[in-house]
């Protein structure tokens, strides 16, 4: 049976983060969240609940919104990962970052990176969502400050500007 004192070896795991190829040495069951924050120092991804309920650790994994606290890093081998640090283009804010700023879509800021990534995923899937679709798209992301109205408005505004652009 399993031997408690036996330490498993670390493994080399490669993926692309925010457009750059990265190779890390990690235990296969390390959470993607911890690898991003501790090894790659991408601390924009936050830990909230650690059990997939709150969405503050949201990242895009091959374009899909996921909770990085629930991803064993081995399952990210070869994946294309986008974190909040990869959303802006250099000094130019992403459209959603801009509209969150204008609409006061952030208060304490803990949920904001996850909200932006969930909204990015939503607008990729549905460029002109209804308000109900916006709320559903963000439903796995909890805001403890309960500033939801401004967040929803920021996403709606981004989709309007996207339609014009």
């Amino acid at each position: 049976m399993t031997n408690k004192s036996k330490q498993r070896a670390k493994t080399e795991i490669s993926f692309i983060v925010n457009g750059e190829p990265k190779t890390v040495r990690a235990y296969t069951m390390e959470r993607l969240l911890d690898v991003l924050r501790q090894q790659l120092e991408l601390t924009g991804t936050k830990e909230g609940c650690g059990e997939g309920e709150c969405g503050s650790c949201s990242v895009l994994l091959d374009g899909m919104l996921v909770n990085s606290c629930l991803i064993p890093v081995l399952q990210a081998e070869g994946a294309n990962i986008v974190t909040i640090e990869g959303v802006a283009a250099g000094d130019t804010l992403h459209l959603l970052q801009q509209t969150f700023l204008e609409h006061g879509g952030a208060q304490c800021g803990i949920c904001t990176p996850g909200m932006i990534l969930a909204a990015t995923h939503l607008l990729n899937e549905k460029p002109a969502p209804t308000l109900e679709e916006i709320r559903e798209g963000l439903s796995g992301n909890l805001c403890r400050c309960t500033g939801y109205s401004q967040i929803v408005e920021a996403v709606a505004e981004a989709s309007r500007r996207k339609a014009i652009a």
Partner: protein
Amino acid sequence: MRSHPSDFEMIAPGSLHAVVSLLTREPGMWLPIAGGTDVMVQYAAGMLPSRKLVSIWNLPELRRIEVTASEIQIGAGYTYTDLRNHDIVRREFPLLHTAARWTGGIANQNRGTIGGNIVNASPAADSLPALLVYDAELILVSVRGERRVPYASFHTGYKKTLLAADELVQAICLPRRFAEHFGYARKVGARNSQAISKVCIAALGKVSNGVVEEIRIALGSIAPVPLRLAETEQAVKGKAIDSDLLLLAKRAAAAEIRPIDDIRSSARYRAAVAGNLVAEFLNRLGAAFAETGEARDFLVRWNRLPVDKAISLILSCCGSKAWAHGVVSRRPLADEAALLAASHDAWSSLAHADWNEAFETHPRIGESRASQASPQSVEWSAEEQRNVQQSESGVQKALADANREYERRFNRIFIICATGKSATEILEILRRRLKNDAATELHEAAEQQRQITHIRLKKWLQ
């Protein structure tokens, strides 16, 4: 106690054959992990039963759907997002589609799999009652070969299943014979979404010649395993749906289930809710097949329209898409009263931005059209504002000025239920409402919009 990753080992062999070979070589040693939405939660809590995990995420043999003339075979690795996006699931198995929508937020739907939900065997899983009423069968696979078992026999006790130590669930088979049935799904929890159910129901039925011809009811969260209500079904079958039958069904259901007391709810509450849900299902089943009166005929046809079409028809009554979606999602609606009640419920759950969307589809009082309105809406607006159009020009001018002042102050057009009101009355009300603070005025405008909507819904039925 939290787990430490150095105590664990995970491998990803990459093919179904390699995984089942491993399960045979070391039976009971390896815990399969797909999207991790359950396993990683247990891991975080230090509750994993094994220190060796084998990844089955994204295995091509499991993440597929096969469609034949008589059934669909859904791969166990199909995610909730995959299910939501599949056309045949949406059209022919709406109860499963609905359950997929209910399960977690988008991120968890992107990772959670139908096979994982089945094997994890939580009695509270929302998709399991749907599988029961659709008569699902499971294909279990090991190096010994495949076997096919009825899903109804799969759960043998709380979190216990028929799965042998060397087996995986490969696919879920659903017969394609329920497309014409009326389907009903509802979950009752502490909140509408993102809450584990206290009781959830999936039910299918068909009425012909005025009596219940076929009926299938399953409940989740009520017993250690998802439960099919065979006795209640028998009690109802062959009978006409009337108030006596609803009462009988309610009692039969409450007697048949032996609900659990747990952290989320009490047995008594669950029995009462389960009885009510069964009665509500029968009521709607009756409505869906009822055919009397012209308004009813119109509603019966509208009840059966695809969601998009049903939304676009009802949007002329109120321009908020969230409202329209809310009303449509409450179908089938039996009569005018049910329609108005659904509209009221949908309207009360909207956000301010949805109200504004509805306001934008009205023309300014005294003008002929709004930028967003449908032709039907334009016609109704003209009828509603007839008195204003026919009033003297001095009042019209004063109205136009007050309108502009209102728009400057509140940043939207002035909304009033104008039916039956003279131009002078409207002008008085407008001047009074100009003195409101922003929050009061928003709610007053929303109430006016609700009244307009209800007048229009009544016209719509004719």
